[in-house]
């Protein structure tokens, strides 16, 4: 019996020693000399054009910042759905990556409020970015007089993609955008009369949010629309009610399985001739190129009523508070903002550079049009893609829209949207 007891102690002791030594090992690994050279870049660009864009950026970083090592810390998953969870854990544990990807603008509020990212306005001056980026973009990025990230690219959200072949069935000219939402609804009615059952293809979640935003933008105008997000426009107004009613009408022209498909499926309905239109950001252009859909098979224009307005979203990089190797991170941020860096990234990802000094000839056909618009148009933000509201507000809006997709109660939706913007 005594021997048994001794053995038990021995086993427990050994287990304890193992546990202690395991801890010791991991500590040693974290504080080596080489660690200070590493720049850990956290993104959700794990494959496709996004990965290619990141690789382009890295090759520029390797020449410009020879003193540092790039360490890829990408987490796969559409629009960062998984990555954001992983990032939240790392930040909470006080172990931020050297820099992380985030949508530029108000979506950073959560990190700012939590004291997890540093002000980088100083770097804008150091790198000359305050002159290279358009002033109205800088205005959209500024939160309480400070800027917390450097954008790598710009995407446009308010784009409708149309199939000329389908529109031909109702003798609609696919090259010309309807003047406003009402004219679009009239065209949708014509298409339905011509036998296209669900002429407007749409998918779940953020795609419906983008459609609401496009209708609000078209009906209210750019300034009033931007006011919805910064509190200058009243969500309870009659103009908002009218716009939401038009959104409800638009939903009646959409596919029954809208809650169960993703945007590439909705685009597929257009490409296969089952639907006339879909509304989606201009990453569709890169997708169409990748899928080898011929240029003649689709057209695109700003969503009805929003011509002359560029509803933007931008991927950007931050400087986390107390991150490892802030000097290396600044060099990465310099690469991200530089003309070569933006060219290497955007020609591959299918977006346009945030800088206004880029040469359009370096880019494919769609991007050339977008670059011209980016220079001349008014700029609007987007909640669905983080430039105008925080992650929490976006979460509430998505929930309200999924409820609306079933119950179709406009008054309730309007109240819920107003309430969502009042939270943080």
């Amino acid at each position: 019996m005594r021997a048994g007891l001794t053995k038990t102690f021995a086993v427990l002791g050994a287990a304890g020693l193992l546990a202690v030594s395991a801890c010791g090992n991991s500590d040693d690994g974290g504080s080596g000399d080489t660690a200070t050279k590493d720049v850990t870049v956290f993104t959700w660009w794990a494959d496709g054009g996004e990965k290619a864009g990141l690789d382009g950026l890295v090759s520029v970083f390797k020449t410009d910042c020879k003193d540092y090592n790039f360490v890829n810390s990408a987490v796969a998953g559409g629009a960062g759905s998984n990555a954001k969870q992983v990032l939240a854990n790392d930040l909470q544990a006080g172990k931020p990556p050297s820099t992380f990807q985030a949508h530029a603008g108000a979506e950073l509020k959560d990190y700012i409020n939590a004291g997890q990212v540093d002000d980088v306005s100083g770097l804008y001056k150091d790198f000359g970015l305050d002159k290279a980026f358009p002033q109205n973009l800088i205005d959209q990025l500024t939160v309480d007089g400070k800027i917390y990230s450097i954008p790598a690219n710009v995407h446009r959200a308010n784009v409708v993609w149309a199939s000329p072949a389908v529109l031909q069935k109702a003798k609609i000219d696919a090259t010309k955008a309807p003047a406003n939402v009402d004219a679009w609804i009239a065209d949708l009615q014509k298409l339905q009369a011509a036998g296209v059952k669900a002429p407007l293809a749409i998918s779940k979640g953020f795609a419906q949010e983008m459609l609401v935003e496009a209708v609000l933008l078209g009906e209210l105008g750019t300034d009033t629309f931007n006011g919805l997000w910064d509190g200058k426009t009243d969500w309870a107004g009659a103009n908002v009610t009218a716009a939401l009613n038009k959104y409800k009408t638009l939903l009646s022209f959409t596919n029954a399985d809208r809650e169960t498909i993703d945007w590439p499926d909705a685009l597929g309905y257009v490409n296969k001739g089952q639907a006339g239109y879909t509304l989606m950001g201009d990453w569709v252009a890169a997708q169409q190129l990748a899928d080898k859909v011929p240029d003649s098979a689709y057209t695109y224009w700003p969503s009805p009523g929003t011509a002359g307005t560029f509803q933007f979203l931008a991927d950007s990089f931050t400087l986390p508070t107390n991150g490892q190797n802030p000097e290396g991170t600044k060099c990465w941020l310099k690469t991200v903002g530089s003309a070569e860096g933006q060219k290497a990234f955007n020609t591959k990802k299918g977006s346009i550079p945030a800088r206004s000094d880029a040469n359009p000839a370096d880019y494919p056909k769609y991007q050339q049009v977008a670059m011209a618009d980016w220079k001349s148009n008014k700029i609007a933000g987007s909640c669905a893609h983080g430039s105008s509201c925080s992650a929490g507000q976006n979460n509430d809006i998505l929930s309200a829209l999924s409820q609306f997709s079933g119950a179709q109660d406009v008054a309730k939706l309007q109240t819920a949207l107003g309430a969502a913007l009042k939270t943080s």
Partner: protein
Amino acid sequence: MHGRIRTWGPGALVLLPTVLLLGYFVYGLIAWSFNTSLTDRHTARKGPADYVGFENYVNLFGEERFLNSLKNLGVLTVAFIVGTLIFGVLWALLLEKGVPGESIFRSVFLFPMAISMIASGVVWAWLLNPSQGEDARGLNRLFETLHLGFLENPWWTAGNRWTTMASIALPAVWQLSGYIMALFLAGFRGIPGELREAARVDGASEFKLYRHVLFPQLSPIALSALIILGHMSLKLFDLIYAITGPNQFRTEVPAVYMWNTLLRSDQAKAAAIAIVMLAVVAVLVIPYVAYTVRQEAEE
């Protein structure tokens, strides 16, 4: 004195790691969550937080979204338990009567349980496509092809809560019925053959045999099944997340809502939802534990 330590000492020593680990990782963290749920820690900011009493709970129960998630959970649990018990008992009865190739059927019915819910959820998301008629896909396509058009329905995108949550329960029923079958089958096999023979000699019909002799013997199994299914349903997250995605009002249950809340760093509210979920599970499990302890004491 020395002798007494020798009797209980080794046992206590063996239990000690478990007690310590459970004490910290389960009960300690429950206490931690409860503590967080009483504060105003609504961002990820570190540092001290103020105590606000039960404000987070009061807010939760005044919120349409949370009440909706609780109602969804109630309907889901009823649909899941009833569905699984019906199929599980039915299959157990059929196999118990003896069929050729019984082991094959047993494996076929049990097999879905081996699949992780997140994986089966992805497949069921395709099967439960709400398109009907010519455009039908998934299960609706199957019905369409078999000329059973009247069975087609919008599944979880239907407006009413019962259809919606029963559609979500469907994959869970499919996965767990085999397990319930195995439980009941083992129960049936454990009943001594003499009992059946005695009943038959006394002239009991087959129905009466099951109703008055066999089923009463299975009540402990039925109770265990109920508890296992009940607590699984109350915690269900992965299946719903895979089928409908986050932020889907119509199918949201507290577990999904908690995840959403935590993702926006509202730690106090997320902790409050977690504690409400724990309370709901406790209502189910504690009477069961009390019952088993009493049973064991009697034996």
